[in-house]
């Protein structure tokens, strides 16, 4: 019997997808914040990609200056609320908390951050001041965390900003790419609405930028362009049978799930191919949707998985079975996928190869590929003089986030190949500053 009963209603969905870092109540926040030691040159700050002054915002919670606490957070990270819930804090701020060194549980920094910012959002506090107009305009392509952070930062510097979004709603992967037990749609949208209202963000949704003439128009109308375009759909594996309609990409699966919740039906036998965090998310969520047998298959060994240990443990604790050193050879079945054939792998002179005669078959009526995303190469190729590296990541200056086409700046997954929301938020903020420095250089 599987761990989870299939959710048939939104209520049942919420039970299965119970938030991993639920909102603290004031008593919990008061006690937890009181434990903070206020370390000197605190390791948690150093571990935060956006460098939030964590001891300060925690102290502000203890002293009941929640507005100030939220301000401290947003001063460094425009996705302060979302990041509190979804950051892998165990390997970032909380992992660096000095309490770990004495086997005392670290301060729950993420939840405290979420608590303070939730207060500011709920109370509609004014934390920011839109800068006096400087007459400059920037186009942001993509409303994911990188684009949002860039837009917010530009607004307080006095820029006009238009954010072009291909999808129906802003937020990008914060809304569509995060496992549903990490943050709710409502919470993501609340922060987005809050930022939009407070900073006058202008979203132009359902408006993909795919053609050269569109870029030409943007180049004429704006002083600079920021690319926060993320990465593309799940890559093709070139496996026989991959084209069957019950073979889907993990990114697409997660997006579908976030949109449809309990209305999405997973069959009983799910095979997830991959060893990264997205694979773990897809497997954990399949389990929570009530699938009975979920097999996570990775072609290398356990220690080589890209996924964080805690994400793997979460998948296993949700009832997922894992197979290592197994490479899919074909997806089999008549019209629909019915099974996946694997071969065992081994290293030969440092090269991974399959072992002859080691085939085995795993039943599958849904195959989820979490084997990396293809690149949005189309748009990349349209920007003149903008270089990418051998993995098709946009090459940027690491301080200004300016691309090799000076008018274009970029950040987020398009630059780092796929990382955390917090990394994208940092890129966006830095790029805004880079844009300011670059435009000022023409004065």
């Amino acid at each position, binding site marked *: 019997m599987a761990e989870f009963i299939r959710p048939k209603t939104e209520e049942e969905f919420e039970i299965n997808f119970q938030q991993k870092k639920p909102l603290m109540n004031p008593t919990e926040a008061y006690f937890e914040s009181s434990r903070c*030691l*206020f*370390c000197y*040159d605190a390791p948690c700050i150093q571990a935060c990609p956006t460098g939030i002054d964590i001891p300060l915002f925690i102290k502000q919670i*203890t002293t009941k200056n929640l507005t100030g606490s939220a301000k401290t957070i947003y001063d460094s990270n425009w996705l302060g609320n979302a990041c509190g819930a979804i950051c892998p804090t165990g390997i970032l701020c909380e992992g660096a908390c000095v309490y770990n*060194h004495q086997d005392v549980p670290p301060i729950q920094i993420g939840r405290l951050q979420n608590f303070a910012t939730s207060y500011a959002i709920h109370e509609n506090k004014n934390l920011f001041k839109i800068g006096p107009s400087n007459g400059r305009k920037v186009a942001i392509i993509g409303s994911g965390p990188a684009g949002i952070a860039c837009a917010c930062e530009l607004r307080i510097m006095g820029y006009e900003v238009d954010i072009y979004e291909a999808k129906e709603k802003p937020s990008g992967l914060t809304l569509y790419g995060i496992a549903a037990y990490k943050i709710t749609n409502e919470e993501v949208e609340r922060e987005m609405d809050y930022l939009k209202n407070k900073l006058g963000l202008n979203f132009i949704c359902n408006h993909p930028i795919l053609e050269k003439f569109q870029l030409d128009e943007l180049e004429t109308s704006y002083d600079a362009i920021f690319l926060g375009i993320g990465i593309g759909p799940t890559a093709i594996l070139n496996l026989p049978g991959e084209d069957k309609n019950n073979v889907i990409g993990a990114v697409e699966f997660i997006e579908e799930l976030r949109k449809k919740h309990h209305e999405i039906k997973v069959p009983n036998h799910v095979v997830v191919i991959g060893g990264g965090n997205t694979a773990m998310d897809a497997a954990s969520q399949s389990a929570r949707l009530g699938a009975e047998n979920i097999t996570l298959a990775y072609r290398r060994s356990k220690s080589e998985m890209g996924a964080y240990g805690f994400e793997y443990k979460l998948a296993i604790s949700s009832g997922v079975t894992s197979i290592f050193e197994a490479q899919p050879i074909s997806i089999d079945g008549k019209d629909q996928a019915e099974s996946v054939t694997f071969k065992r792998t081994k290293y030969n002179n440092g090269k991974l190869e399959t072992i002859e005669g080691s085939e085995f078959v795993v039943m599958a009526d849904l195959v989820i590929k979490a084997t990396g995303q293809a690149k949005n190469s189309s748009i990349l190729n349209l920007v003149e003089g903008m270089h990418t590296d051998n993995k098709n990541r946009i090459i940027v200056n690491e301080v200004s986030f300016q691309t090799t086409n000076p008018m274009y700046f970029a950040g987020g997954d398009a630059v780092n190949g796929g990382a955390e929301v917090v990394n994208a938020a940092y890129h966006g903020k830095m790029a805004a500053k880079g844009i300011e420095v670059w435009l000022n250089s023409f004065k």
Partner: protein
Amino acid sequence: MPDLNINFAGIKAPNPFWLASAPPTNSGYQIMKAFDAGWGGAVWKTLGVPVINVSSRYGSINYRDTRMAGFNNIELITDRPLADNLKEIEEVKKYFPDHAVIASLMVETKAEWHQIIKDVENAGVDGIELNFGCPHGMCERGMGSAVGQEPAVLQTIVEWVMEVAKVPVITKLTPNISHIVDPGLAATRGGSNAISLVNTFKSIVGIDLDSFAPYPIVDGKGTNGGYCGPAIKPIALDMVKELAQHPEIQHVPISGIGGIETWRDAVEFILLGAGSVQVCTAAMHYGFGIVREMKAGLEQFMTDKGFETIYDFKGKALPNVTEWKNLNLMHKVVAKIDPAKCVGCDLCYIACDDGAHQAIRISKLNGNRIPEIIDENCVGCNLCALVCPVEECITMEKRDDGTKFKSWEELTIENNVPTSFDDELAGGKHHFVPTVQDALKFRK
């Protein structure tokens, strides 16, 4: 098994833990429950002409997540008729003949004092406590701390009391005075059988930042209260010591009061000469059951140390409390950090660098956050050990060999102390101090 029984100025009790005169001793019901919970005595909430109290009576300060680290009240003496209290005293004494029931009293005229003493003695009290302490409300009417602050008046009233009292009399002092010895001497000279201290400190416990009124707020206004709770213990200990060391007072039994919540607190008061301790805030915070920690702790302490009764260690710390001028200037301790225990919070580093003597460095090489003591700069101030959040991580190591002794007093006699502003003998003359410009390297 240690014997916790005490005989305090003739008042016998099964243990030294008494409830102080306060809200927990407002009624016979409460005192019955307290004795059943393990308290050895109780000082009945002050009797006198009953008062009318306000609603909204207490305020407190929280320290981080610790509630009521300091507590403040504007409640007055009993608001119940004397007859009701006397009847309950009688009943309690029937149930608990061996427990100490002491009546706290506060009246104005000599006639009232004589009358009420007779009344409470008839009810069967084991002793009387004179409330010369409350710093709120009653003092405006010439009682409480108004008496305690005027040693001559205090002595006169004690003398009135001693004219008639047949049971032992304890005089309770206010700490709202610059020199506690003055009222202590007055009580002694008036013939008081014992002294208890301290009553509460005059205080404003906080201001409401929305209504701009002091806590506790009574319809938009407030008044000073009496401050008590763990926060006041250090000041109370010092005052107990002042009396216990005074040649003319030291024979007088002292009941120690002020911020006692644990067995450790109680033992400290006893080590400074207290023969019983009185508790209020802890009982108001945790209920009467808190005494089981105090009793168990005291018994364990006495067992561990081989003390059979509290008289085996009463006042044992007094010879070690001396004046600054007698301290050994040759004594030298230096901080030592145990790197295996250090968590790298670096609070010791910044405390020393900003708040003390710049005697700790952090290399930060390869992210190493473990601080190092710079021995030659360390003055042994203890600050790093005090701020360190890890148990026994920073210790203070003795560096002198214990053979040399030189006090300020001796140096003064030898003419070996600095006397001019730029004296060569200045203690910090050759001690390391960073340059003014060294501060600039921290600028961002």
